């Protein structure tokens, strides 16, 4: 199939950036979306033009690197699918596709479709952990955890840190990302000793990074490639309130 692509090009963080139109031909339905971009980049290189920069690595939907907004939707039209797992069989000959980076004030563009998502790392540094030094921990079966709680922890732990939740939100809120980590630990006995300071510290860092607040639109849940539920945000809000009045 033949496609018309409108792609955000921006040489570096200082450049203003603009949409540029390209045509690609010979795209087959078994290609992934990123393989379609590979075809474009090979063509650009042979024309002595610089390839379109985009973050990607594992190409199997788990590393969280890929981060494109396709026709206005982070990770594109398929539900619970990262862009690397979106295949061209969902498009048809002659389609026009708009490709932009994940946009948010806290995710500045580095080049083209590549953004700086290190704010997520800093939120993790503020409290996204259990302080368990290596060694000196009890036997793994010493503390039974109900299957239900372990499963709920896993549902939230599945977050890949891609930032689609932020990109989809009109407030550029990182609540779903933070709530997923807070909830994972809240469902486990290992997370209890630091439960209050964790939520306070992570939320404080989130605000400091310039992410917005949540106004219950649930766009984040709709685009989350791992299907993380907004119920985690409710849990985090309760925990935050409790911690704020008791800590």
């Amino acid at each position, binding site marked *: 199939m033949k496609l018309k692509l409108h792609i955000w090009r921006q040489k570096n963080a200082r450049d203003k950036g603009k949409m540029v139109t390209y045509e690609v031909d010979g795209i*087959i339905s*078994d290609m*992934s979306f990123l393989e379609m971009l*590979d075809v474009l980049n*090979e063509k*650009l*290189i*042979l024309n*002595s033009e*610089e390839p379109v*920069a985009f973050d*990607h*690595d*594992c*190409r*199997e*939907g*788990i*590393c*969280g*690197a890929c981060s494109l907004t396709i026709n206005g939707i982070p990770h594109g039209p398929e539900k619970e*699918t990262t862009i690397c*797992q979106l*295949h061209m069989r969902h498009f048809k000959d002659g389609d026009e596709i708009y490709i932009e980076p994940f946009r948010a004030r806290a995710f500045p563009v580095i*080049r083209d479709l*590549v953004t700086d*998502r*290190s704010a*997520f*790392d800093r939120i993790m*540094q503020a409290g*996204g*952990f*259990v*302080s*368990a030094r*290596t*060694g000196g*921990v*009890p*036997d*793994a*079966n010493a503390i039974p*955890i*109900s*299957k239900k709680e*372990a*499963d709920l*922890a*896993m549902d939230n*732990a*599945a977050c*890949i*840190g891609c930032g689609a939740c932020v990109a989809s939100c009109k407030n550029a809120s990182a609540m779903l990302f933070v709530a997923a980590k807070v909830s*994972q*630990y809240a*469902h*486990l006995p*290992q*997370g209890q000793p630091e439960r209050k300071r964790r939520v306070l510290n992570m939320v404080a860092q989130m605000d400091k990074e310039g992410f917005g607040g949540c106004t219950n639109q649930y766009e984040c849940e709709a685009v989350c490639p791992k299907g993380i539920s907004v119920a985690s945000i409710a849990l985090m809000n309760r925990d935050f309130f409790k911690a704020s009045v008791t800590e």
Partner: protein
Amino acid sequence: MNLDPKIPSGPLAEKWDNHRFEMKLVNPANKRKYSAIVVGTGLAGASAAATMAELGYQVTALCYNDSARRAHSIAAQGGINAAKNYPNDGDSVYRLFYDTVKGGDYRSREANVYRLAQVSNNIIDQCVAQGVPFAREYGGYLDNRSFGGAQVSRTFYARGQTGQQLLLGAYSALMRQVGLGTVDLHTRHEMMDIVLIDGHARGVVVRDMVTGEVQSFAADAVILATGGYSNVFFLSTNAIACNVTAAYRAYKKGAAFANPCYTQIHPTCIPVSGDHQSKLTLMSESLRNDGRIWVPKAKDEKRAPNDIPEDERDYYLERKYPSFGNLSPRDISSRSAKEACDDGRGVGPTGYGVYLDFKDAINRLGKSTIEARYGNLFQMYERITGEDPYQVPMRIYPAAHYTMGGLWVDYNLQSTIPGLHVLGEANFSDHGANRLGASALMQGLADGYFVIPYTIGNYFATAKTEKVTTEHPEFKRAEEEVRGRIDSLLALDGSRTVVSIHRELGKIMWDYCGMARNEQGLKKALELIPELRQEFWENAKVVGDGENLNSALERAGRVADFLEFAELMCHDALNRNESCGGHFREEYQTEDGEAKRNDEDYTYVAAWEYKGVGNEPVLHREPLEFENVQLQTRSYK
């Protein structure tokens, strides 16, 4: 070249304990005076960096991804082994050790493997304490499943995302230390070279991938945890950026490279669909717990799989290896798939595929049980192929997945360069010629959490090197070399893309140094690779500049190293006149096509010394001595 493995004295089960006592310690107040650079933040690198920082050392950590959480350890699906014996099915440290040595086809070092089995249990404890949500039973205790090459259930798992959960555990521990200011983490920094001063590893030269700036870091020791080199095949299950550069640069600076020909071809991957393909996707080996592998009995079968009656199907693994069946080890399963396809009985549009069928399991256990066990994997398969595996059997084919070879290390995980330590997939030590499923995660975390934090202290306490800074002339010289190399890559203005050359290299390696090798093919590859390397330097094209993020330049640097490294693999494969594990030489097989080892002549580690580009490397041998396990023909029948 000194290949003293430094195996501690005493009985096998006491070696590690004795060694921990004998090693010199650094007193707590002095630890902050010692520094280490950790390159790579996967399971091995992140766990090492976090743990050493907890101990009080100054740690600098580097990774080329935008976040430490994205290392390819994250993609491991199936699980992690440990000798907990929670299911009460006869497991023990000794059995895990024995299975690993046997699974590695008796080409690994006994003492290292035993230590790995010993610390495996600590890993599970540590991860649970960190909040890793392993699968549990209704009673609240941890669940286990079985994996290829073992007859006990010793694999712990977190749905089909075990690697992700373990990496996020290690990443969280690392983030905690970064937040505390004890680890200086640099993301989007790629290691370009290693710097030696007076024969000791003292630092690295890196390129800031955003600004293009070339800079150095100095320390008292350097730790490489930079993963494997499966991407030499172009198509593999590795992430796109995975490369051999860090390990290969160390090799060029004098570190011995051990057993590069030991590569693992994973039996259950989604088959290649066309030339556009950028990578192959693994389907977890855990699927083989419930899926049955088969091909049609007849050649050129045209019927749809569900129309082929039972008696016209060949469940070849169950037929050939009745006691392990569909859970036969990876090398054997992969080779059997290749045989079936070479025999004209392969399935799918290309004829290079076999069926992995869940019909019996769904009938026996119900769709919901299968969904609970493998739901996300089935979903992933459907997304990629457009076929529903609940309705039609999956099609799978082997793909390059893991590399057992790597930089040579002694018992302390130190390479032949003093001060340069190597962890995880980047070293060679524990898996011999074939790795068992769910053992890579175990090894990465064993090295990072429980081995290097001890042995690095011993190195600091005994090496007593002078302090150096990046102002030292050796750093300046190395930086100039790196800049020169980047300039020569940027000057490439031919008519071929780097990716097209990488793809061609991959085809050479897959055809001649892949699942089956022979002397003639390897010699052919040794002619083709230098030609292709010349083609690269004469006719490749790299666009853009060195002052901005430049993905074309990054790729070119990595492919340039693969083009040299590929030759080393072929030399090693040619030297090893036997078949063992993942290394199958067609000349050395039994009448029924099984691998034929040659213990008399090849029970050694082949450690190669660099002698210049295009020159034949020099072979050094570390004899492998088996004091506890008797060498046997590996049989899974």
